[in-house]
């Protein structure tokens, strides 16, 4: 196990989410789930982050923001799409202003389904994200 799997720092961005998934993401930090046990830190700074956790779908106004945040994260990095909207656009998919899931604008490594995604499945998604991060690190090193 390398240092990456012991210290995944997360950047959380809310696209056009209804806030259901965001509340569940924050629930992961509370005493009940306490993801800091695994070294997870909610950084709020793309330049410090390893995992980009996006909730909600992509709309016309946040395409640039998502691409900008993703671009500012130093390699190796992983994107986790949390919730039905982030995966595919969800119930908003056919709305006039919605582009669809996060994978329309940046490459997504892990999809976490659910409306809203449960904290357990979000943690599971992050753990799979860590495995993807580890693979990218190995690829970068070789």
């Amino acid at each position, binding site marked *: 196990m390398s*240092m990456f799997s012991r210290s995944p720092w997360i950047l959380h961005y809310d696209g056009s989410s209804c806030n259901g998934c965001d509340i569940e993401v924050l629930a992961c930090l509370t005493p009940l789930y306490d993801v800091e046990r695994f070294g997870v830190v909610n950084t709020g700074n793309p*330049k410090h982050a*390893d995992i980009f956790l996006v909730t909600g779908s992509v709309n016309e106004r946040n395409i640039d923001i998502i691409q900008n945040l993703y671009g500012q994260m130093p390699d190796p990095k992983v994107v986790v799409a949390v919730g039905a909207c982030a995966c595919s656009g969800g119930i908003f998919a056919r709305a006039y202003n919605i582009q669809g899931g996060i994978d329309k604008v940046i490459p997504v490594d892990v999809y976490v389904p659910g409306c809203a995604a449960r904290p357990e499945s979000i943690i599971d998604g992050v753990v799979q994200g860590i495995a993807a991060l580890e693979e990218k690190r190995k690829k970068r090193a070789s």
Partner: protein
Amino acid sequence: MNTAIYGLLFVVLAPLFGGLLAGVDRRVSARMQSRIGPPLLQPFYDVGKLLQKKTRQVNPVAGPLLLGHVIFMAATGALLLGGTDLIFVAFVFALAALFLVLAAGSANSPYSFTGAERELIVLLASEPFFILMMAGVCKVSGVSTFGDVLAYPQWVAPQLPGILIAFLIVATIKLRKSPFDISTSHHPHQELVSGLTTDMSGRLLAYVEVAHWYESAILCAFMVLLFNRSWPIGLVAFGVAYALEVLVDNSTSRAKWQLVLRSTWAATLVLCGGNVLALFVIGR
């Protein structure tokens, strides 16, 4: 010769001490919030990971400046334990902090720049204390190096009560604890993104972390200096002070810079200035 070895030992062992202290800090903070918290060695994992990440420099001078920050922090401790004049050590300590300000100011991000400005303010707030503390220790013991103060046959601390209390207030700044962590804005409550470190990534952020470990160890050495007759008691005193800092960190919100400057200067002027003045008046 012996003192030079102590200086070298500090350079090697201080990061281990500082990193472990940061680990204990995060665990104790988590317990205060009814959480389990990260493993004890988490700060080492974090730095290990940061060293493997790609480093992005907004301004190419940031790298050398941050390396200077680490080197001068290590040098402060090495000079202190190596037997250099205490006042000189206080000035090198300030210089080390200045490197961080320059590195943060070199990036064009408004968050980083505001962090750098706030760091200058907290430097302005804390530096007079360290000079007065050294002056007080030198006045009481009549000697001016770390080794000589430790060899001084009487306790220094009972004659420096004001400085001991002010130490707790200034250590809040140096250990980057709420309510005085205005320049970094650490993770639990962030209003400046990451303040000083906003534009530092990968290796650069690792430098800042390691320098902070040195900084904690230097503060511990200062506490040992004040409890000169027995270093274990000095260590225990530092432990108690650190526990208080963690408690305050978890129970207060961040102050405005005006309050930081006023309260620190008031404590320095009244407690330290009064203490040193009393020493001169009584000592006459």
